[in-house]
């Protein structure tokens, strides 16, 4: 999941070691509601998918993002790759 990792770093300005399933918006300075929207938009663009409104609003942690990506058929080969 190098692509997810890169987008998280680009959009949220997050440290690599912070990228864990349990990381929530509260842990990341730039992950406010707008940051979350940008994240959704850029993931949609990168993976050529469309999240539903509910999915975008329903993200509470990085694990959720991975869950929704998987739901849209994005194969997360190795969990460890991003953590």
């Amino acid at each position: 999941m190098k692509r997810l990792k890169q987008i998280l770093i680009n959009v949220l300005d997050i440290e690599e070691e912070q990228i864990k399933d349990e990381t929530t918006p509260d842990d990341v300075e730039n992950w406010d509601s707008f940051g979350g929207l940008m994240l959704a938009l850029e993931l949609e663009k990168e993976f050529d998918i469309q999240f539903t409104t509910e999915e975008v609003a329903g993200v509470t942690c990085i694990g959720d993002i991975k869950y929704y990506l998987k739901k849209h058929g994005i194969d997360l080969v190795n969990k460890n790759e991003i953590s």
Partner: protein
Amino acid sequence: MIVPNNISDYFRNYREFEKEPKKWEQQCSKSLRIAVLSSFSNNGFKEILTEKCLQSDIFPDIYIGGYNQYFQEIINPDSAFHVFSPQMIVLFIDTSSLLGDEYLLPYGNSEKYRKAWVETKIEELTSLVQTIKEKCAAKIVLHNFEVPSYSPVGILESKQPFGLMKTIKDLNNRLQEAYKRDHQVFVFDFETFCSKIGKENIIDHKMYYIGDFRLKLDLLPRLCDEYLGYVKPLLGMNKKCIVLDLDNTLWGGVIGEDEINGIHLGLTMEGRPFWELQKFLLSLYQRGIILAINSKNNYEDVLQVFKDHPYMVLKEEHFAALRINWNDKVTNIREIAEELNIGTDSLVFVDDDPLNREMVKSEFPEVLVVDLPEDPALYLSTMQNVNDFNTFQITNEDKNKGKMYVKQRQRKDYQKEFTNVTEYLARLEIEVTIEEATPFTIPRLSQLTQKTNQYNMTTRRYTEEDISSFAEQDGYHVIALSVKDKFGDNGLTGMCVIKKDDATWEIDTWLLSCRIIGRKIEDVFLAYVLEKARKNNVTFLRGIFIPSKKNHPARSFFKDHGFKKNDVKDTMEYWEYDVNKEYPYPTFIKLIRR
């Protein structure tokens, strides 16, 4: 700072900017306080507008009004908005905010109600703007309103006495009329902006419901580009003059090679893009933009096109300055700016050759260099997107500003200019390969003698058989030259035929494609031939120049390179170079001998 690709890139850059705003303030030559007031979520405006300003050499101080707070902020004289004291104000109220419930329920009320609504809204908007005007002298960019593209009455919308669409169109017309003669307020035609984008693409419904975004985030950079169209004239940064190349820019092909009947210009598939580009340029001329030419051509050839080509829309009289010569484009640009008495910062440079563009960019970062796409079919739309010609009105002040900049530029002396061109060439990483003719290169060498007209000393045309026979004989050298630089490979673009005698070598043929002239390639070539002659104990290198209608650019080659003229027969000139006299290789060109 990175070149923004996604919206988040603007945010990343903004975070960088915020770390050291002082550094940016020192780097930018202008600054401006801009306030953006909107009726909906305003995230992104600050970051994107900042980037756009910095890209244009403007240090921005941006105030973003509170979410849908525009009314209170304008009315309250002590609001943060007024304290900020903007120099430019964008007021962006969107149609659905303005209409409220009527946006989705337009026909719950009568025709009379809708007509009265327009009156009320015009009244409200103009008095709001009036409040701003009474408090500050800032330029006000007032959005007009997107005409909805959906109607609940469907195909009958056009049958409505005063329908929803008509209501908004009417409002827009009234707004335009209200500020037609106002020097402070400019109505930004957001409706046309939306049409240009496509109204189905204006809104991201998901974003709208989640965060009340009435405009797709991806569109903000384009919208901010539109705002810059107002910022630039406000700061006197509008462009005043377009400096144009000719070959493959105003027409297709090379006039010196293809001649007047061979260039593409007019009704054909190949000619129409150039013809239409010329019409576009004429339309700019008609609004007061100055046109100038900066091209490597023979003056007479161009004059003939002006006079005789039926589809040459632009005529000599449309150009305020002509630099049709064989000087480098940088020198010409400098001369054009001086002649017209305007700053180089008000110039736009248009040339199909990326190399010339790079040269101008590196010498004059303040010149707007248009990166023409490779396909001429895209020239017109590319030029139409240059949003730098705007003026609020033409004042004497504007004219004087140009002069001031010219004075500043004039302190640069010629010596420095020369050094810079050399430095520029050094940065190109030019690589010249020189080799004797081989069976693989002979067809191309023959073709070069057939097709090269301009930088050709003797214009002797040779067939492949001719070249082969020279190459096989001991009495001749046929030498091929190829050029490469960091922008790409020019391929085999130069050659010479040397006729050998014991004491004297004679240059029978010496030619370079005009693509590679002006980069000291000819110096390397000459140094190479002289070195070879020296090794063979030759005393003199003889040059021959046979003037033709088209080889004017080559005329001074021998003189400029230390040859002495020792005879003229009819028009044929004989020149000589003492081989023992050192001729140094230009240090910045890498030579590969094969």
